[in-house]
């Protein structure tokens, strides 16, 4: 009986102090903040994802031989094709119409070096279905696909790249109405990207 009571007491104490087979964290405070940072990073990534999948961004991140246009993401008119470097073909280049700035008097959007993203940075499948948050995150952080950009370079890209900036100032359609905007302002987009990068560019685990 005495032995049984001692075992019971030992088990109870172990439960109270949290004694398990796993070693305790070296610094409970840092473990807690790391968990919070990853959670915050994933939340920030979802904000980034909401922008990347907006038509102003994803229309030129196709998996096909052509860009898309419009909020319904239809195939670009005039039989425009990707070409070898994502800038069209000799007599039908992107810059055949798209100049260095929006042409609001004629409704043609423009920014410096208008072009398609490379196929390695496609964010859609061949049926024009947008890839999942996890898939785009993995692609975006794969340096063999993203022009060898680390987190800092991704932040710089989202902060300064003219075509990224254009998405937040996309100009007027031919009927004079304004093109729709991504769900965040550029400042909010950069803030979310920075939080995601500072968290170590975490990606969702699900497919």
């Amino acid at each position, binding site marked *: 009986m005495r032995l049984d009571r001692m075992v019971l007491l030992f088990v109870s104490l172990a439960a109270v102090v949290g004694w398990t087979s796993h070693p305790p964290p070296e610094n409970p405070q840092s473990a807690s903040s790391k968990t919070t940072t990853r959670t915050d990073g994933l939340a920030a990534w979802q904000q980034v994802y909401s922008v990347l999948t907006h038509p102003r961004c994803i229309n030129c991140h196709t998996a096909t031989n052509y860009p898309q246009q419009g909020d319904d993401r239809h195939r670009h008119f005039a039989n425009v094709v990707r070409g070898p470097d994502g800038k069209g073909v*000799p007599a*039908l280049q992107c*810059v*055949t119409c798209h100049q260095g700035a929006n*042409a609001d008097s004629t409704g043609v959007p423009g920014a410096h070096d208008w072009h398609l993203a490379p196929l390695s940075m496609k964010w859609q499948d061949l049926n024009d279905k947008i890839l999942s948050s996890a898939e785009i995150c993995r692609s975006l952080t794969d340096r063999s696909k993203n022009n060898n950009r680390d987190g800092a370079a991704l932040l710089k890209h989202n902060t300064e790249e003219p075509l990224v900036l254009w998405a937040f100032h996309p100009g007027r359609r031919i009927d004079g109405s304004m093109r729709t905007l991504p769900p965040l302002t550029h400042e909010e987009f950069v803030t979310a990207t920075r939080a995601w990068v500072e968290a170590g560019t975490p990606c969702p685990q699900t497919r």
Partner: protein
Amino acid sequence: METYNITVNGVPKQVTVDPGTPLLWVLREELKMTGTKYGCGIAACGACTVHLGGVATRSCVVPISLVGSRPVVTIEAMADDPIGHAVQDEWVSLDVVQCGYCQSGQIMSAVALLKSIPKPTDTEIEESMGGNLCRCATYLRIREAIKSASQQLKR
């Protein structure tokens, strides 16, 4: 109204127009160079194609304010351009034209193609010329004329 200095076919020109005026209308209305045609006004047909800084460009959608220092070359200069001359010769030789309205744009695109790819394949011709519409459907003769001009230029 703003005043712009542009170079058209090697000649300096000065125009005073609204900044949003498309290059097409500067050429046709201000400079009275009517070889470049108005087709659709939305870059959907290619009839207004000129070379802007060496690039085939739809002049109907480029405001004069965005032309900058890039030289403009139009159909009127093609007779003095070696490739342009060869293309025009083959256009005549193969009797490409029916109504002719789109043909200045077709020729400007064909010349831009041959300057970049001297011996284009059928696919390269179709992709490059895909934005130039012809309501008379002279597409097969256009393609043959481009290939024939390519052969002439190799000699």
